[in-house]
């Protein structure tokens, strides 16, 4: 299915939850926050939040430099 990730259209597997999507994108273990359709998804809700066709996702990477 097609979703929008950080403004870019992207094909991802059907019926994935946020946790699986992160895994699919190769971002597991990274310091990230995820927003789905303008609402931030709590880390504890990643496995129960299903991604749907056309969803708009923003993935933020936290970094440490400064």
């Amino acid at each position, binding site marked *: 299915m097609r979703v929008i990730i950080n403004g870019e259209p992207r094909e991802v597997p059907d019926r994935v939850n946020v946790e699986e999507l992160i895994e699919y994108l190769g971002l597991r273990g*990274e310091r990230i926050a995820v927003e789905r359709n303008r609402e931030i998804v709590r880390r504890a809700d990643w496995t129960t939040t299903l991604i749907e066709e056309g969803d708009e996702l*923003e993935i933020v990477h936290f970094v*440490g430099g400064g």
Partner: protein
Amino acid sequence: MELEKYSRQILFEPIGQRGQEKLLQSRVAIIGCGALGAVQAEALARAGVGFLRLADRDFVEESNLQRQIMFEERDARERLPKAIACQRRIRRINSDIRVEALAADVNPTNIEEIIGDVDLVLDGTDNFETRYLINDACVKHGKPWIYGAAVGSYGLSMTIIPHETPCFRCVLEQLPPPGSSPTCDTVGVILPIVFMIASIQVVEALKLLTGQRDQLHRSIIQIDVWQATCHRIKLGALLEKSDCPTCRHGRYEFLDARIRHLASGLCGRNAVYISQSKRVQIDLPSLAERLRSVGPVKLTEHLLSFHINGYEITLFADGHCIVKGTTDVDLARKLYAQYIGA
């Protein structure tokens, strides 16, 4: 107080004369005076923030100069502590304001004192651990703080008002394992992103200090200046849903030092940083005397440094230390124990 100096800022309607008067009465602590912290310090000093406290554990080196705008070649030659170098420059920029410099490690033993009498804390640190510590202390004492970080051409910022917005730990629950994300060490960093992120932090600071909380951006802003992209995540209702150990349950695990690494790698350097778990005061001149049997020792007003087996050890009076020439934490600790003592 002469306000002519700030006339163009006063003309800016959202600040005005009332805002300027508030800024002159304001007190801000900047933790970390490297790349981001230096821009914040300079901008707030020029804006006329009445009191700045600058804390940094590092000294100036040549490789800092490309992105750390407060410092000059002379500071690197003198190995000046960054907090001191920043303070000197700010005094030349705006002599109306008071600037306090702490050439020290910010840790659970001193952070509550450092933030206790300020209105706002700005993040200029280079590591996650200190940020969780800032978050604990600020949530505990109800102080707003502004996270900012930059690596490569990318950076992000978020403003935390305890119990009003999600806190840092609401958004990033776990202290990430070392080595799990890019650092200035691995991918470098360029000055333009430093300016952008620090500027976002400074604007938020000006809004907060002039009492305009309704104007805050209330999001996580991320920018890639090379890609010319900017994204925002709205923080919205996260606080209501949060089960955060820090701001929901009042557990300050970093402040209570239950989660702490006493030694860690340094951003952008082949070096290990070692801190103290308790308050100490080291008599640098007498230690320098003892170490002279080992080899040449350089002693300045603020620090002591010497070489041993190809490593360079730099020690500050509060006991914190930088071991250069290795990223091996155990080796660095061993050298510390051997030559400085436990």
